[in-house]
């Protein structure tokens, strides 16, 4: 009996001692191999607010690069404390368009299952407190995903300038967190994220004639003579309301000093205008026909005054002298190299006094309507 008791006691002692030794070995020498916990932190997180001024309604962009393997079903963006976050899911429209949003290098469209509440939909899945949640598809670790929220109805920045933080969290469909990324954002004073640029564009107007002489040559009664090289008037102006080209002449016709005779430009010029007509061979007459030839650019449309509409041989109207300038052409807007081509036409009768000094001096002026 005593022997048995001693055996039992010895056995217990050996077992206890063995366990003690094993514990010592474990403690002193060999840590157990236990897998480390997953970090659960996004590799990369960026949230860009399109306005940084305090108390500004703003759109923005969310980018995140998952680090942990999981089956994403949602992404929840928590905006900084103090920002006013609409809890109306319909105020959180999103898209996955990269063009025009300057996504960071490597950014790709956030994968979405589509449908109501998904990224790319007109509404979020939920919007509670500072956190807005959208439905997401499963994401690949190491890929930078981005999306944009595109309506300003969802978010208004905080009313105090400063540095703030928020989070982007990927979740499973059951809302278990997979990765969390913390972002920082700064807000500045009212209007301190904008520059107002102003300028005044000076008025400018130019009128250039292509020549100052127009030799019609020897006139004969059997035909109507016209300018061998029609002269042009070129207008450049930034007058927003257009421009005018006026003309007058010195003799109201072609006058010969030696013959004391004038081939008349108009029958009467007392009213300051004459009728548009077409000269006929054998009948004395002298007129100016104008055509709007071209315009490189400009907002204006050129109109030739009815009296001086040309375009065919002998067609036009007579310039006046005593009545002063008559409108030859006009435009209702700006002009870049607006060209008016002018033909002088003349016809004589068989009884027209011969002379070689028939002449007239035509004067053209222009101005912009600023």
């Amino acid at each position: 009996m005593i022997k048995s008791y001693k055996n039992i006691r010895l056995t217990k002692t050996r077992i206890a001692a063995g366990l003690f030794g094993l514990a010592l070995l474990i403690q002193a020498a060999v840590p157990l191999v236990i897998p480390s916990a997953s970090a659960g932190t996004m590799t990369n997180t960026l949230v860009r607010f399109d306005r940084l001024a305090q108390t500004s309604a703003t759109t923005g962009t969310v980018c995140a690069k998952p680090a942990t393997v999981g089956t994403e079903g949602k992404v929840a963006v928590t905006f900084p404390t103090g920002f006013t976050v609409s809890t109306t899911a319909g105020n959180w429209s999103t898209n996955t368009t990269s063009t025009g949003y300057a996504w960071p290098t490597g950014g790709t469209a956030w994968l979405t299952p589509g449908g109501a509440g998904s990224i790319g939909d007109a509404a979020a899945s939920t919007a509670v407190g500072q956190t807005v949640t959208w439905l997401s598809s499963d994401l690949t670790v190491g890929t930078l995903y981005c999306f944009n929220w595109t309506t300003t109805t969802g978010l208004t920045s905080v009313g105090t300038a400063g540095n703030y933080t928020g989070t982007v969290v990927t979740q499973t469909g059951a809302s278990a967190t997979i990765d969390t990324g913390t972002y920082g954002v700064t807000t500045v004073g009212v209007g301190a994220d904008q520059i107002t640029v102003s300028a005044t564009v000076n008025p400018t107007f130019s009128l250039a004639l292509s020549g100052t002489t127009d030799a019609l040559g020897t006139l004969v009664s059997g035909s109507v003579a016209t300018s061998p090289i029609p002269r042009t008037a070129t207008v450049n102006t930034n007058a927003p309301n257009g421009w005018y080209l006026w003309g007058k002449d010195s003799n109201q016709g072609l006058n010969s000093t030696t013959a004391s005779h004038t081939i008349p430009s108009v029958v009467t010029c007392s009213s300051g205008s004459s009728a548009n007509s077409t000269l006929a061979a054998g009948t004395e007459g002298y007129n100016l026909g104008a055509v709007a030839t071209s315009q490189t650019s400009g907002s204006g449309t050129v109109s030739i005054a009815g009296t001086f509409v040309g375009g065919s041989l002998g067609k036009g109207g007579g310039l006046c002298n005593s009545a002063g300038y008559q409108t030859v052409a006009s435009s209702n807007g700006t002009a870049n190299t607006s060209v008016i081509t002018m033909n002088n036409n003349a016809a004589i009768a068989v009884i027209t006094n011969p002379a070689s000094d028939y002449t007239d001096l035509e004067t053209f002026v222009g101005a912009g309507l600023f």
Partner: protein
Amino acid sequence: MFKGLALLLGLSGIFASLPATTTYQLNSFGFGSGGTGNSATGNYSLEGITGELSGNPTSTGNYTTNPGFIQTQQANVPKVTLTNPSNYYDKLKFVLDQQNNPSDALYALQVCIGADWTPTCGGTTMYVQNDDTLGASLVLADYQNYATWGGASGTTIIGLTGNTTYYIRAKATQGKFTESGYGPSSNATTSTQQVSFCLYTSGSCGGGGNTIAFGAINVNSINNSPNNIGTDFATNADYGGSVYIYSKNGGLKSTSNGYIITSATANLVGVGEGFGAQILSVSQSSGGPLVKVTPFDGSANSVGVLATTVSSLLNSTAPLVGGTASTQLQVKPSFIAPAKNDYSETLTVIAAASF
């Protein structure tokens, strides 16, 4: 030799079945000039005795002594210093002090998040893993030598939480059964994720201003803005950040006329009309670098388009301090840009960082 003693203390567990017969048991014994297969390292080997009973241990927060047997065979207790040298928000730097341990000594680092050890961790206990992250468990692979832990330059613990204080302490081992106790703790606090941004047109950030007035300009001539857009940008984000720009009208627009001197990427010398921006200078105090982004990186009269959509203006792929840039606007009205005194544009300049 002293380490050998400590080793034998560990081995005492193996031989914990005290010598005995069916009648007697030897409760106190000793043997000399022993040694075990596990008692040698490159520098030391065991020649000692074991079997002495130990008394009650005494301890402080950092050290434990077990009177009754000699424990100096342990590795020397190392020190470690934790700092946040560069406004880090997700990492902290530590440097080990070996305390004369030999080069083959291995070190493990324990971290207490949010509180110090008094004597137990008042926060969450973690360990620095061999990938420099924190983990809840310490495994053999997390014991690394001085060089692997960065040597005199140290290394960083990564994956930390911003605005949080971390406490760290280290212990050493140099062969089995030689592990020291933890040394004194050191602490540092991570910063928050930070972005700093300032926009101005009056010389410097403090000067303020948010207007650029070209004044009266002539058609078909290239006009430089009389003052420039100043942008200051800094962030502690690991991946840096960008400054972006976008416009309201896509050009200088006459409110009364509706005409727009359209912004475009172009050399204004070769086009009839244009409006855009060109970065004149960019620099930083440290980090970065902050760089010009195409198409705003031209020279002379080459400008980048100020679109109504967001465009990158400046970029850095690393944290930076004191980033600053000066951007000039240039405009060339065409012959037909209506003469108006109400041309205007609103440029919005923003910044974001990649944490």
